[in-house]
């Protein structure tokens, strides 16, 4: 099974609150791949990238490093599109 991953840093000042979490899940659902978002540190957590609740539980504040993992035949493009959301700060400041 093809896999792809990318390390990103949350760069919007409000962090990964509900709206960007939902935007991420909406995008993840456009792909067949399984998507996982991992957070290390004091509160490590592995979120299912297709679950809004789990993405909110990440509580990823500005500056938090995260790893996006995808597993499936469209893993490569999925990771690229999902990482782009963070690069674009989810359309926020």
């Amino acid at each position, binding site marked *: 099974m093809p896999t792809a991953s990318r390390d990103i840093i949350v760069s919007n*000042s*409000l*962090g*990964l*609150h*509900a*709206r960007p979490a*939902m935007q991420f899940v909406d995008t993840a659902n456009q792909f067949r791949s399984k998507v996982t978002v991992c957070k290390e540190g004091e*509160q490590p957590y592995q979120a299912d990238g297709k679950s*809004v*609740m*789990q993405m*909110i*539980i*990440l*509580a*990823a*504040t*500005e500056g938090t490093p995260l790893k996006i993992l995808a597993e499936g035949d469209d893993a490569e493009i999925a990771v690229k599109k999902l990482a782009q959301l963070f690069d674009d700060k989810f359309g926020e400041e």
Partner: protein
Amino acid sequence: MKLKEFIISEAIVPQITATDRNAALRELATSLANAGALPVDAVEEIVEALIKREQNGSTGFGKGVAVPHVKHAKITRIAGTIGRSAAGIDFAALDHQPVFTIFLLLSPENQPQQHLQAMNIVFSNLQKDIFRRFLRQSATREAIVDLLEEADQRP
């Protein structure tokens, strides 16, 4: 962060009388104001902000729960409350199911990290089937407060 650090016990509404989303938001915000957690004259403004937030994307994340929330200049200290509706309320939820439990969360504008921590603890609990089930069965304020205390004691 613990639930008891921001859930205002006196503002919990074990039996919501409202039957639609906007009225439920108003009922819960009013309850928070009556408990002294926000200025009474700010209720309408807060309710409008909550409704606007819902219109931008429902906070009914599925499984019978909704977590309406807003960051607002009139909020000086993070405050939340819980409402239960036995009949269920249409929140335009992601899974198209009615909402039986509402966690309302109001945060100051300038503390995004605290807001994320509060959302973290709310959703960590709401993700547990047993927590949702017990909450839905807790018909009194005392029962809900007990459930929250138990949840806070679990790691």
